[in-house]
């Protein structure tokens, strides 16, 4: 079956196309709204002969991740997808996956976490997994979802990295919204992403064991190596994005700059709020307000050096955060991350953190303009502000 060059796809289906083109060999997936169409599309691909994978339909996301880890250790490419409660049920094994150095790629449809129940766009599910040793990408549309799945494999499977990667996109705003998506050919993807055939794997011919009990010193060394591998990711992910540009003409950067030249003030956002913020930036610039946008696409590892370089000398930074963490100086994760990145920087900007869009509430360009104008008038506070 020949693939079309471009199709009208939802974020979920675009992610499934990305996964299919990576040709994973084992796919353990458990259904959850709003991710389920990813899994459905992949099983459909298998039926159409576009995929030759072992599908596992376990009884929980926990078991899905367990099978991902052990299959990846056995030396095959693995893919899974989840959302919200499912991601959090995996939490123990997210740590396990990075500790086992398994380059699993997973998409996560960002959805509010219970209680109370909701199905709405919110980054708290994945933000609360930030210490698990996974690469984290946040994407804003179906095309970026497809492209990032493949870039994530390219980065995660690099022998200097060997860490799992998560691609998050918001419930419904991305997962169920249709856009035209360009689909690269299988040949093109194969030229970009070589087969995953790790030298060290779980195999009776090799006799290697994994995850054994270790001493304090060995554990310390292991964690240090894991952290050092994470430190190498930025350069490798940047290279993967540049090679993707050579192949498809599309590039995103790891921190996207939008109209930042001569911008005294910078809005920082992730995911779909970035798209809205571009419209707000256009409007404000035409009104003479010197504001630009930086979209954080790679959240783990956090682009500390890049932000210090980009934000030095600016006046104000306005952070819009769709996730919340009670007890972190007002509740915004992104606010804390940016502030700590800028600590001790000469000519550091004033930083404003707004909780905007939490729970899937609608953030309009007008709302963003309000928050920017408010920041221009007020002194910044150490605490983030509920800004919707």
């Amino acid at each position, binding site marked *: 079956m020949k693939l079309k060059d471009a199709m009208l796809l939802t974020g979920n289906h675009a992610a499934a196309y990305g996964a299919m083109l990576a040709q994973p*060999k*084992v796919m*353990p997936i458990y259904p959850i709204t709003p991710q389920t169409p990813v899994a459905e599309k992949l099983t459909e691909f298998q039926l159409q002969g576009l995929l030759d*994978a*072992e599908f*596992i*339909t*376990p*009884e*929980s996301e*926990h*078991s*899905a991740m*367990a*099978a*991902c*880890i*052990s*299959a*990846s*250790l*056995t*030396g*095959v490419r*693995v893919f899974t997808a989840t959302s919200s409660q499912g991601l959090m049920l995996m939490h*123990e*094994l997210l740590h*396990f996956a990075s500790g086992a150095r398994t380059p699993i790629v997973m998409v996560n449809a960002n959805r509010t976490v219970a209680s109370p129940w909701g199905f709405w766009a919110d980054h708290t599910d994945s933000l609360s997994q930030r210490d698990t040793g996974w690469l984290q990408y946040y994407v804003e549309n179906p095309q970026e979802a497809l492209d990032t799945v493949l870039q994530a494999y390219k980065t995660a499977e690099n022998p200097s990295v060997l860490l799992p990667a998560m691609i998050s996109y918001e419930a419904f705003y991305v997962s169920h919204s249709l856009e035209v998506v360009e689909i690269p050919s299988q040949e093109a993807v194969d030229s970009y992403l070589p087969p995953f055939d790790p030298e060290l794997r*779980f*195999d*009776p011919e*090799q*006799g*290697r*064991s*994994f*995850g*054994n*009990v*270790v*001493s304090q010193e*060995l554990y310390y060394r292991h964690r240090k190596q894991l952290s050092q591998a994470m430190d190498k990711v930025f350069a490798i992910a940047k290279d993967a994005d540049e090679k993707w540009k050579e192949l498809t003409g599309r590039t995103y950067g790891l921190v996207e700059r939008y109209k930042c030249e001569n911008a005294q003030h910078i809005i920082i956002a992730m995911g779909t709020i970035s798209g809205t913020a571009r419209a707000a930036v256009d409007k404000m610039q035409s009104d003479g307000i010197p504001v630009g946008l930086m979209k954080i696409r790679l959240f783990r590892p956090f682009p500390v050096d890049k932000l210090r370089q980009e934000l030095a000398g600016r006046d104000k930074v306005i952070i819009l955060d769709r996730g919340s963490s009670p007890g972190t100086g007002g509740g915004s994760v992104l606010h804390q991350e940016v502030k700590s990145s800028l600590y001790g920087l000469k000519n550091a900007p004033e930083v404003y953190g707004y909780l905007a869009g939490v729970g899937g509430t609608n953030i309009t360009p007008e709302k963003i303009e309000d928050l920017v104008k408010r920041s221009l008038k007020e002194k910044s506070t150490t605490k983030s502000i509920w800004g919707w």
Partner: protein
Amino acid sequence: MKHYEIAEEKVFLPGHGACPGCAMALALRYVLNIFGRNSVAVIPPSCMGPMMGAQPYSSMLIPIFHNSFESSASSAAGIKRALRARDRDDVNVLALAGDGGTYDIGLQALSSVAEHNEDIVYICMDNEGYMNTGTQKSSSTPRHAYTTSTPGGKESRKKNLVEIMAAHHVPYVATANIGYLDDFVTKIHKIKDMKGTRMIIVLIPCIDGWGFPGDAAATMSRLAVQTGVFPLYEVEDGTKYTINHGPEGLPVETYISRQRRYRHLTAEQVSEIQKEVDENWAKLEGMANLFSATM
């Protein structure tokens, strides 16, 4: 005395960390040495960890993956599927877990793997409690037994995992112990030649957790069968029953009076245990008569 000559491929080696006299070391020796080098295994937290030893040493000549506590079945299934994808479907994939990791925290994953009939071998080393953490009750702990979490004796019965697995219609589930080594070895050979989800629940009398002398694990294994507490039987495809060894008319008192975990029992509680054992046996015999494997 009968002397067993069993063909073994050396996989399980001396230098393991089991307690002196532990039945699990002998059980593991036959499981691993019969399955041989073309095997891999997953091990959750359990007595199997110290038995393997700490990095960089291992008492087992096959690759071992130490998985998370509740994931033995799903981890084994993930490996099997990946081996299949790598054209290495010939490799035996074993899960070696304790009763806490099987009857309790691992049951959900095990149920799913059994329902899918994933091609793995699951060996449950059943010492009837969380012995590796210092003797807490599991759902496999029998009624009235003392553990540190049931200091007055456990109030509920031991969970019947054989019936749970049989209800999933897995190709094979059986009980075994090292008091009946020929029976155990026959069962290991039998499942080695089968496909699908296969399970052996091995009763491991725990020297420290149950409280008996270090040279009595084999005796305790035999008494468990002879008193009818732990009959040895097989269920194939969920319906075909074979009883290998059953009670020989010995009262349960012969078995429980030798264990510290039952020292607090009243005469009434001993009769309750006897009644439970009799009921269980009657039910098993009934099932075996109705659904005999030789019918």
